[in-house]
């Protein structure tokens, strides 16, 4: 079986400008929603108490909300979680009431209304922890960005590093934009997914860059644009198949992972889709705008090739 029967190199770079404008618009829209709507942060970040309660029969969310509101807690959120029988109750941090009292009070009140209510999970996070988690998340993001840039700058060249990071940060912002637009809950696992996507879609760009470097060595007469087009064309089948395989795994998580893994898998899905787009259309184009050329990559490597025949980066010997 062969899905991709491409006769000649597809001129991806001819439309580079269009693609970059499209990503810029998507990016700006995402930023706009991120600021206008903000992320719907989970209890882990905001602090507060979360209760997951299960009932023997489909739960009446309105009744649950009324019951909890009667206890005098402000800003109570109640929603279904996973199935109709499970209810998720969120309480913000309350003054003068400890977390234990809070969850016990709520459970007691719910049991009075419906004896079949049983506690499945409670979570309490103090306000100081939430701020720290947000700070740690940003630190992790900075670490990933700097780490990947340094690695790519050493292994390839700074222009590639910049291109890869811009392309992939744009993925991250777009994922966040989706979460802001739909007001999906942004929790710690989602943060993990976002950073994993960053690493994953950079690896996508790396595959293309690797091919660009190889082509520079192999096809001495091609122009930079032709080389990029050839690199993308010859890796496109791999790109689609790999992403397809990863997406199958993520889909399986989305289908079987239940409510806990739902948003995690969703973040990955968006990340994977935009990861393909950004590495194919954005990263290479930015590298092109930045003016990558043969001399940047080939000079050092030629010397190395003669010195070490086993070097895995050595050019083709066809």
């Amino acid at each position, binding site marked *: 079986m062969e899905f991709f029967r491409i006769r000649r190199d597809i001129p991806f770079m001819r439309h580079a400008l269009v693609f970059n404008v499209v990503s810029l618009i998507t990016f700006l829209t995402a930023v706009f929603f991120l600021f206008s709507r903000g992320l719907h942060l989970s209890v882990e970040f905001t602090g507060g108490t979360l209760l997951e309660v299960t009932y023997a029969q489909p739960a009446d969310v309105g009744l649950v909300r009324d019951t909890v509101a009667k206890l005098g807690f402000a800003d109570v959120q109640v929603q279904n979680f996973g199935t109709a029988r499970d209810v998720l109750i969120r309480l913000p941090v309350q003054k003068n009431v400890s977390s234990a009292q809070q969850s016990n009070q709520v459970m007691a009140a719910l049991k009075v209304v419906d004896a079949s209510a049983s506690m499945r999970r409670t979570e309490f996070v*103090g306000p100081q922890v939430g701020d720290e988690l947000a700070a740690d998340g940003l630190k*992790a993001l900075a670490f990933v960005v700097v780490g990947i840039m340094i690695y790519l700058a050493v292994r390839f060249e700074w222009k590639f590093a910049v291109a890869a990071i811009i392309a992939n940060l744009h993925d991250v912002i777009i994922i966040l934009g989706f979460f802001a637009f739909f007001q999906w809950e942004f929790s710690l696992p989602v943060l993990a997914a976002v950073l*994993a996507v960053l690493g994953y879609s950079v690896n996508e760009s790396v595959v293309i860059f690797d091919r660009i470097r190889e082509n520079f060595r192999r096809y001495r007469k091609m122009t930079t644009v032709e080389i990029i087009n050839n690199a993308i064309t010859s890796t496109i089948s791999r790109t689609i*198949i790999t992403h397809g395989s990863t997406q199958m795994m993520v889909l399986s998580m989305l289908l079987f*992972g239940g409510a806990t893994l739902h948003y995690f898998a969703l973040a990955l899905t968006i990340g994977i889709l935009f990861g393909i787009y950004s590495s194919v259309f954005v990263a290479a184009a930015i590298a092109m705008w930045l003016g990558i050329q043969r001399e940047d990559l080939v000079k050092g490597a030629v010397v190395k090739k003669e010195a070490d025949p086993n070097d895995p980066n050595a050019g083709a010997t066809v």
Partner: protein
Amino acid sequence: MNRYPVWKYAIIVFALVVGVLYALPNFFGESPAVQVSAGKTAVKVDADTLTQVEAALKSAGIQADQVVLDGASIKARFNDTDTQLKAKDAIQKALVPDVSNPSYVVALNLVSRSPTWLTAMHAAPMYLGLDLRGGVHFMLQVDMQAALTKRAESLSGDVRTSLREKNIRHSGISREGQTIEVKFHDAATRAQAQAVFQDQFSDLQTVETADGAEFKLTASIKPDAARRIQEQALKQNITTLHNRINELGVAEPVIQQQGLDRIVVQLPGVQDTAKAKDILGRTATLEVRMVDESAEARSAETGAGMVPFGSERYLERSGQPVIVKKQVILTGENLTDAQPGFDGQTQEPTVNLNLDAKGTRIFRDVTRENVGKRMAILLFEKGKGEVVTAPVIRTEIGGGRVQISGRMTTVEANDTALLLRAGSLAAPMEIIEETTIGPSLGAENIAKGFHSVTWGFVTVAIFMCIYYMLFGVFSSIALAFNLLLLVAILSMLQATLTLPGMAAMALVLGMAIDSNVLINERIREELRNGASPQAAIHTGYDRAWATIFDSNITTLIAGLALLAFGSGPVRGFAVVHCLGIMTSMFSGVFFSRGVVNFWYGRKNRLKTVSIGTIWRPDSGAATKAE
């Protein structure tokens, strides 16, 4: 060209054997078990306890599947939960005759059903996190400022006593936050006091200031001393928590320091958070009282007479009753430290107590009046008292340093010091994070994670086999090997597996297939360009390797960032993610090449390879390269 030397196959076989062995315990499932561990620091679980447990089971006529001494606990495995409950009662009766004063924790647990030879190799199933097995998680923040203030308070009392002893006149000692201010009338006295500070208070640093007509000496706790005080406070709090949690009868509690001022407590299987929190927050008290040595008390001690009026009967740890007066001389508040040590002259093990200024004064007076009599140190928890030690007073004790010695082993001295210190919390704690997960949710989460991984794996494997034919089969085998290695390493490291960890497992498999897709596409490309099958395999693997390495490193950087900065669920994700990337490089490249070499490498005149359709743009028609 596509042949592996023997040593490479040897590595593959070795990895395969080790992988299978260590992943194996995960497939045996778990059996109900009873776990016996020490309920007190002074109690040791050893071979003797093992025989006791075995005897108890035998006398109750219960057939245990297996009884082993595993580290500091004994695990008895049973076939069903009924036997487990019966056995728990039997063991409880034999080991803990006095329920109000348990020396052992007898708890229900689940133990891997894997055979003894696997357990002997330290092959254990993966360690499941709370979200998979249910239980309670607390994160407590220790108020370090309070610990330092408490210390400064007790030091200021000590300073007062020392200055008085040296006859140095001051015009006032006050504590401002964590600093101690001493005022003097003239500079000469201040210099004398300065000498005392240098001599006796190595933990304090002093600054001389002049305030109008007054001469001031401001003492603050040195940074390294402050760090030590904080470390001790944290350690003491952890010890105290240990002692308290033992009463809950939790099979495998986790009590760990996190960062500089935090303690994480995880109690698998515990559902009653209210009770757990109650126990964690409880304060124990220490009391010093005199032993009643009247004739009536003597006879009461042997059980012959009534306990005299104004006295109470308590048990020593050895079980020996002691009649103690009701009047309290000192409480734990006056005890600043307790450390094990050795007597300078007799080389006997001792317990050295440090008292604060008020305690010192009272202690000196009491000991002066009661030389030759016995004094008891009692520990009260949950309103139940126990005599920790009841030494005879040899001489008057001043200076606030008390040495308890006589008939103690080094271990006992250590334990007593620990008990005295652990009696109370060194600094107040606050719960800043709390999670409770019901047991049914845990089981559901395991099922969800398991299904995600299984179905994802099956779909990817089927796709690979259809798309790349035999090479797809090789890739799927490599992917399965990757999963095996990952499970084996997680079991070996006993890293905590959480639901995000299982998600990472699924994700990493999805990413790992990338290596094989890269390789297979590359081989197809070489074939398309007219390379011979053997050469295509060779160059395909070689060329793809650089790309695979680069792309995995970038993914690994992201994984390491998550590991370094993540906490809780993120860390659980990151551990599996990072390990998975590393195993995928081994399995996806080294192992899969081994399989391919094994299959194709021997064939010298290889005409075709089964890697699916190779489509050539020039011919315009697809040729099957089979």
